[in-house]
């Protein structure tokens, strides 16, 4: 099937095949160009055009409805190319200084010469992968375009692996520059020049009929147009890949969501999402979860599909959606939207109920002796044998990190605070001891007076209290000792134990070389005569200490109980 066009020639209408018209136009243009410089050239061209029209009429009378490329070729053959026409008088009229007016070359040698002279570097849109640059080079330099393309890709890949991605950018940039600078072989004449063939009616006719066979497609011709075309392709490429990535992510997410929703396996979900997110999947009716998931998926997938579809449509790879399809997609989407809202509300309601239950459950699970611990704090304290026996106004927090005396921000220590000075807190260890002499020591600090280390023999006897120095969070004897020891080692100039020096330096450097206020306290030795229980710990309880707690916080760590003799 050929495209057909109707042309008005000298007041009459003629139907042309597209390629035939193309050829006619080339031919008359070449005539006009040829005769343009001779006297009355315009008239000659007009007369010849009338003759062509006359021949069309003749063919019309013979029953040809449209002018075909074959008919056009035979007409051109009949009328001849401009060089032939002028041959009779060329030696008598012009001087022949116009190279285009030379007679058709009569020998092969001359033709060869002409072809070398006339070959030009064009972009070739008739055989293009992108803009036809490499194809143009292949036509200019000779050889199969396949090898140029292979060479281009392989060379850029080679340099990329050898020296990084910038080489690919360089190649792409080079290509873009050439694409912008090289003219496009758009017309049959230009294609002939690109191939180095002589521009004459016979070749033109061949070229025109060939061009119909190799449909060239659209490619911009100008330098700036090329630039924007490439920019556009690049931009579309980006949007394209983003769209595809989005789609992939969406589909993956949706897939996982479906899997979870439909499985509603509590154990699996717990292991992947953790305790706190399990509400999503705890359902008395898994049908509700399933429909909610389905609705959400449809809600997401339909717009995503539409976006991707429109991207592809812009890229001329898909037809736009039909109205019926659009309408049904819209209806399905609205249904999904409503379903999502309904199912979502019900799920949210369920979530609230579950959250309350969950809090209750968690509270119960982490409460020991009536005191609620964060799980990690419970682990920390219980492993070390510490037990909280009194906790009022403690914010449910019994330990902290960040101000350990070595400056190590990960070391955890006992810590308690209440900004209103109201907390009453007791934490203790219990040991059953054989007779002997024992020594307790530990590191402590406090913001204000009233926090004590206490020791008690047996459950009933009164406790002995030793107040923690209120150095706040600066200095402290641990820091002061470390500074002094470090300085003396440095003064001696001879380091026997570099590890020890390192440890001292770390302590001295803590809190911007000011210390965190930690003091190492060693209690008076305790002598036990018979096997007996020993309790010791830290407290702010006025009933135990007989003092009023004035600070907001205190800290403790590194408590040791040592048996220093068996008596």
């Amino acid at each position, binding site marked *: 099937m050929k495209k057909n066009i109707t042309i008005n020639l000298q007041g*009459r209408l003629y139907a042309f095949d597209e390629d035939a018209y193309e050829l006619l136009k080339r031919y008359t243009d070449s005539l006009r160009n040829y005769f343009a410089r001779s*006297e009355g050239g315009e008239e*000659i061209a007009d007369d010849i055009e*009338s003759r062509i029209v*006359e021949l069309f*009429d003749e063919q019309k009378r013979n029953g040809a409805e449209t002018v075909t490329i074959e008919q056009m070729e035979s007409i051109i053959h009949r009328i*001849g190319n401009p060089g032939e026409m002028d041959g009779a*008088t060329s030696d008598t009229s012009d001087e022949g200084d116009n190279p285009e007016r030379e007679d058709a070359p009569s020998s092969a040698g001359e033709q060869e010469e002409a072809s070398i002279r006339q070959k030009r570097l064009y972009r070739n849109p008739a055989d293009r992968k992108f803009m036809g640059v490499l194809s143009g080079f292949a036509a200019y330099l000779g050889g199969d375009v396949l090898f140029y393309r292979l060479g281009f890709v392989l060379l850029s890949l080679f340099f990329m692996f050898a020296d990084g991605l910038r080489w690919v950018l360089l190649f792409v940039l080079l290509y873009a520059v050439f694409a912008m600078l090289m003219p496009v072989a758009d017309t049959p004449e230009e294609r002939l020049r690109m191939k180095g063939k002589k521009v004459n009616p016979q070749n033109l006719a061949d070229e025109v009929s060939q061009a119909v066979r190799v449909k060239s497609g659209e490619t911009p011709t100008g330098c700036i147009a090329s630039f924007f075309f490439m920019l556009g392709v690049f931009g579309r490429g980006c949007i394209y890949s983003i769209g595809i990535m989005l789609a992939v992510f969406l589909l993956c997410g949706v897939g996982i969501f479906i899997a979870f929703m439909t499985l509603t396996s509590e154990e699996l979900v717990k292991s992947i999402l953790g305790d706190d997110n399990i509400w999503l999947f705890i359902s008395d009716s898994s049908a509700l979860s399933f429909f909610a998931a389905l609705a959400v998926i449809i809600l997401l997938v339909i717009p995503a599909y539409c976006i991707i579809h429109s991207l592809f449509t812009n890229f001329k790879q898909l037809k736009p959606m039909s109205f019926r399809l659009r309408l049904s997609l819209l209806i399905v989407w609205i249904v999904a939207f409503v379903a999502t809202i309904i199912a979502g509300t019900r799920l949210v309601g369920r979530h609230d109920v579950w959250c309350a239950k969950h809090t209750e459950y968690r509270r119960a699970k982490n409460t020991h002796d009536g005191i609620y611990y964060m799980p990690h704090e419970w682990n920390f304290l219980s492993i070390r044998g510490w037990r909280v026996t009194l906790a009022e106004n403690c914010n449910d927090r019994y330990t902290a990190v960040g101000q350990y005396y070595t400056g190590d921000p990960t070391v955890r220590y006992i810590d308690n605070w209440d900004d209103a000075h109201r907390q009453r807190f007791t934490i203790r260890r219990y040991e059953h001891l054989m007779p002997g002499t024992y020594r307790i020591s530990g590191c402590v600090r406090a913001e204000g007076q009233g926090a004590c280390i206490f020791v008690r023999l047996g459950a009933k006897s009164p406790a002995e209290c030793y107040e923690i120095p209120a150095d706040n969070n600066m200095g402290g004897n641990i820091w002061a000792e470390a500074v002094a020891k470090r300085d003396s080692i440095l003064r001696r100039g001879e380091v026997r134990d570099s590890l020890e020096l390192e440890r001292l330096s770390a302590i001295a450097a803590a809190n911007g070389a000011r210390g965190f206020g930690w003091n190492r306290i060693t209690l008076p030795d305790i002598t036990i005569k018979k096997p007996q229980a020993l309790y010791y710990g830290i407290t702010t309880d006025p009933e135990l200490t007989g003092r009023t707690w004035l600070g907001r916080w205190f800290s403790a760590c590194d408590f040791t109980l040592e048996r220093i003799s068996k008596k």
Partner: protein
Amino acid sequence: MDVNNVKSQMRKGMLEYCILLLLKREEAYASDIIRQLQEAELLVVEGTLYPLLTRLKNAGLLSYQWQESTQGPPRKYYALTESGEQFLLELDRAWGELTTTVNYLKVQ
């Protein structure tokens, strides 16, 4: 030396003379002239005629007038001018001399 080449050179040389001869008989338009020249095998490609006609007209040897046609657009009908007739007489004389020379050479 190609015989066809020489023949076409001879025809080309005669072309203007023949056109003037044709137009002396009766005025004609380009396609008539083409048909008659082709019958006489004087014309290879039709396009050759048009530059010649224009040159002859520009030299004042021919004139034309537009005439309506029943089969298409108006046509240019060419006719000899006075100076064209003079020119043709000169050419007749030259042709006579040529044929005499050629015949003389042939007989010898």
